[in-house]
């Protein structure tokens, strides 16, 4: 047999193998840096310095990580149900619409009401946009990969049209809404911690980060410690076994995607309500796709998602800093690295396993 089903010590499967795969991705990225004529070691040093060397760097790292925790969890929840949600980008975009409607038109309410309402609206819009492909998959057998890709494009078109024609702030050219009122903005972590007497650097990091952490714990409890989550995982592992166990796969598919869409909408919370304080064209900025890399690297476990989200956040921030230090290297290198991580930890996840079986295998 190939090495896929032989038993290995748990730490090889859950720590060593992902780490080796990540190293391969970094190695190829290093070769790319070499081909541009720069020193990879120097580049890595500059990136680590930029991402983690200052309070500001750490703040930005966690701010980027917030988006990735949301989309990483979204993709992971769908994966557990055997679904590939490529539509987190579109779901986040639509989530931004729900959130913006609350922040624009209910901003006469106090913050402690606007905040939960905006969160609910974002989650509801994101969830509804995920429910459509989920329903089509569950009831009509339409392949969710194709439908979510198509729905991403429909979301781009719809939101662009809405921003240009409906939501735009009157009397300006660029398609964006007016700035939200102060009571419809999330407080920054700097302000929150400042209130507790802790001084941190001024960054876009805001309390959406805390919401992301709460979501992480909730997903962990839901997927691993409830009957519902067990059902989701059974459907993901084998829909036929689920039927025999009395679990309706269709219903679980829809429910898991609704949760996934709601989690995707967290990007809107962080970006729109937390950082920009207005709705901008294309604010999800590819985080829906980064979420796939984050979920694959985190092995679809909430803790793994957190670790890989912070890692990717550091890469984003480090990459942005790097392009100042070494102008020949652009932050697009991070996009390439993201693709490499998906390739090695996703598509080629088991490439090295036969070799590890030879090393650590137990007969």
């Amino acid at each position, binding site marked *: 047999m190939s090495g896929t089903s032989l038993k290995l010590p748990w730490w090889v499967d859950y720590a060593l193998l992902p780490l080796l795969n990540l190293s391969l991705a970094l190695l190829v990225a290093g070769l790319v840096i070499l081909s541009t004529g720069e020193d990879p070691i120097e580049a890595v040093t500059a990136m680590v310095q930029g991402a983690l060397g200052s309070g500001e760097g750490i703040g930005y790292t966690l701010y980027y990580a917030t988006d990735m925790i949301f989309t990483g969890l979204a993709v992971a929840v769908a994966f557990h149900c055997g679904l590939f949600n490529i539509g987190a980008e579109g779901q986040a975009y639509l989530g931004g619409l729900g959130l913006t409607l609350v922040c624009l038109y209910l901003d006469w309410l106090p913050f402690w009401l606007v905040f939960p309402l905006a969160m609910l609206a974002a989650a509801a819009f994101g969830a509804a946009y995920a429910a459509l492909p989920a329903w*089509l998959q569950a009831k009509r057998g*339409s392949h969710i990969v194709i439908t979510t890709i198509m729905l991403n494009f429909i979301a781009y*078109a719809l939101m662009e049209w809405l921003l240009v024609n409906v939501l735009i702030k009157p009397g300006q050219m660029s398609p964006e809404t007016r700035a939200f009122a102060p009571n419809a903005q999330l407080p920054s972590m700097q302000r929150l911690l400042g209130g507790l007497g802790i001084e941190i650097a001024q960054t876009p990091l805001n309390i959406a980060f805390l919401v992301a952490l709460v979501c992480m714990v909730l997903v962990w409890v839901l997927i691993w410690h409830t009957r519902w989550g067990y059902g989701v995982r059974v459907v993901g592992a084998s829909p036929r076994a689920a039927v025999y166990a009395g679990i309706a796969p269709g219903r679980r598919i829809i429910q898991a995607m609704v949760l996934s869409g709601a989690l995707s909408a967290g990007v809107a919370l962080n970006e729109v309500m937390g950082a920009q304080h207005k709705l901008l064209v294309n604010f999800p900025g590819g985080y829906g*796709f980064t979420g796939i890399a984050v979920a694959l690297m985190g092995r679809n476990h909430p803790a793994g998602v957190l670790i890989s989200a912070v890692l990717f956040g550091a890469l984003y921030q480090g990459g942005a800093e790097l392009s100042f230090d070494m102008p020949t290297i652009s932050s697009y290198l991070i996009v390439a690295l*993201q693709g490499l991580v*998906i390739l090695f930890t996703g598509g080629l996840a088991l*490439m090295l396993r036969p070799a590890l079986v030879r090393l650590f295998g137990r007969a």
Partner: protein
Amino acid sequence: MDIIDQLPSLLAATIRVAVPLVLAAFAGLFSERAGVVDIGLEGKMLAGAFAGAAVSSITGNVWLGMLAAVALAAVLGALHGFVCISQKGNQVVSGLAINIMVSGLTMTLGLAWFHQGGQTPPLPPSARFSEVIFPGTALLSGIPFLGAIYGRVIGGQNILVYPTFLMVPLAWWVLYKTRFGLRIRAVGESPAAVDTAGVPVVRLRYAATIIAGVLCGVAGAYIATAQGAGFVRDMTGGRGYLALAALVLGKWKPWNTLWSCLLFAALDAVAIRLQGVVIPGVGPVPVEFVQSVPYIMTIVLLAGFVGRAIPPKASGYPYVKER
């Protein structure tokens, strides 16, 4: 506006837009009929566009650019094959990885090599594919309508347009009239049966993914060195996904796929001309809506309310030999 005046330029634009769609959709056709799902069309096209523009710009020879585009995209096709066939990895993950990787790598390398914000230097006409003017175009241009059809729709198109539309019947012939094509289709429906007959499943699937790469490479070179004059960031602009939609709408059949591509291209050509047009009493035409019609159509078809799109039976699943 006068329909008769507009029609030739609309048709010409439709054909121009359709070329990369047709090439990419047929790339997907070969790959998916052989049982390998390919959402990496976009990435392979983008890689082709970059390689084509970069090599044309350095050598000044657009055919060398085409060669580089095809070679690079074919390598990526083989990589997709390695992940999906040899390593039995997830086919959607592999395609997505290629798309994201290429989007980042083209910009990284473009910036480092050409120092022009990630773009390749603008190509002079000599380093691009040019239009073919048919004999007698000037003579017939005086004839209303038909002169324009001859000079701008049938003739006057880019030199790559003609081989692209010749490729369509060729691909149909290969897939439906040759032994190789029969085996390709069989391996996408029932690889175990093909294996039992002693035909190498792995080799056939690799062949299909590499053919897909080659076609995507041509599409990329067309975008960067025929339609455009150099590489620009993410210049394929979702055409790979649109081609995928055309493939689904065409129900994985060559002629139907061609019609879907032409339909999508026509919609795009119409949408561009509707930009800013105001319908009295209704307001401006929502161009964004016209542009998303292809995606909506695909979802409706996949939902099975109108017809039914059934993919090749074994597509998406790696083939594992039984022991």
